């Protein structure tokens, strides 16, 4: 499993097995923060950063846990690492861009419960990726998450001007759009010889 090339891992995480549209990870922020393109982009970048940091920490932690023979603590230690990484990002954003901090609002601390972040840590362990592969995987997945968020935000900005029936103004319509996007992303499945 672990002999995949770095380029393939990146493309795989970005397009073929896009975290949001093909693996259903990180749906909450995908539905919640995708109303405006600016916020979507910022959210994507923040999440990518958290993904990268926590993926690197998780790699080190896993090595340590295996060495000590206490793998059953893996999940608990991963989630603690992620929570700390989120806290770090929160402090950085608050210091350098208070406006962005307000725009992201509740969704920033909620990155902790973004399944995509924990998903990366869990999948890279399951796939036995080495350090470089894990790094590329997390950045690719983050880019894929940002891409999906941006696409969705673009669609929803257009949709806000359209005349849709009153019944379909809520989450139903957003999910329908997500389904169409996901359908489009299925086209990438052929890229890597049928996914993984």
């Amino acid at each position, binding site marked *: 499993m672990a002999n995949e090339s770095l380029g393939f891992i990146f493309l795989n995480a970005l397009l073929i097995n896009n975290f949001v549209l093909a693996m259903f990870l990180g749906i909450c922020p995908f539905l919640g923060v995708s109303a405006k393109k600016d916020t979507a982009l910022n959210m994507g970048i923040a999440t990518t950063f958290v993904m990268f940091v926590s993926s690197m920490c998780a790699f080190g932690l896993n090595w340590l846990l295996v060495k000590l023979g206490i793998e059953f603590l893996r999940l*608990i230690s991963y989630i*603690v690492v992620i929570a700390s990484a989120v806290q770090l990002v929160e402090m950085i954003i608050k210091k350098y861009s208070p406006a962005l901090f307000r725009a992201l609002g509740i969704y920033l601390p*909620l990155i902790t419960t973004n399944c995509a972040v*924990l998903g990366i840590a869990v999948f890279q362990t399951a796939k036995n990726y080495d350090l470089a592969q894990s790094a590329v995987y997390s950045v690719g997945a983050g880019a894929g998450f940002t891409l999906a968020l941006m696409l969705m935000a673009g669609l929803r900005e257009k949709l806000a001007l359209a005349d849709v029936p009153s019944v*379909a103004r809520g989450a139903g319509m957003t*999910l*329908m759009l997500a*389904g169409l996007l996901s*359908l489009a992303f*299925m086209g990438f499945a052929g890229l890597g010889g049928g996914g993984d």
Partner: protein
Amino acid sequence: MSLVNKEEPLTLDTFVRGVWRENPVFVTLLGMCPTLAVTNSATNAISMGLATTFVLICSNVLVSMLRKVIPKEVRIAAYIVLIASFVTVVDYAIQAISLEVYEALGAFIQLIVVNCIILGRAEAYASRQTVVNTAVNSIGTGIGFTLALLCLGVVREVLGAGTLFSVRILPDQFQPWVLMLLPAGGFFVLAGWLLLIDFMNVRKERRALEQQGATVHGQ
């Protein structure tokens, strides 16, 4: 356990609202990731629902017991660690009970940790209410979640494979809509359910308005 003020009395509503009025999936739109990811068959949907319900009940009861001990500043971290412990238990338990289910659900068992329903309930309910109330409310919410998952799982399995709980129910001539088993199908089926619920709500409101109008005009 003493009932202090601010804590709500134990009523039927404590239980029922998690199932229906505040259904975690259809109304509050929480816990979307497992909802979409593992509902490609009814069996998977039920296993996921039960696993989540177990974690929900255990962790929230514990949160409720410890609500006066956990300092306010670190409560979220404390909740997460509690939840993660129970998820680890479930993870190993499912692996021991049925390897088949374990492989079908894959990483999503471990991802129960980040299911927002559980953390949401802990923060909004268990941290303020008595143990009994919390247990009842968690069971209600868990059942609501399992039912919602089942709603999706049944539709997707019947249309996508022509089977229900792996038993063939549609005639052989039926051409399965493979799309329903793919990720896109999950989005479409959930969208369909949400649209249906919205439609019913809108119709109910309109009817209530009409009735009001009718009494005002004395008809």
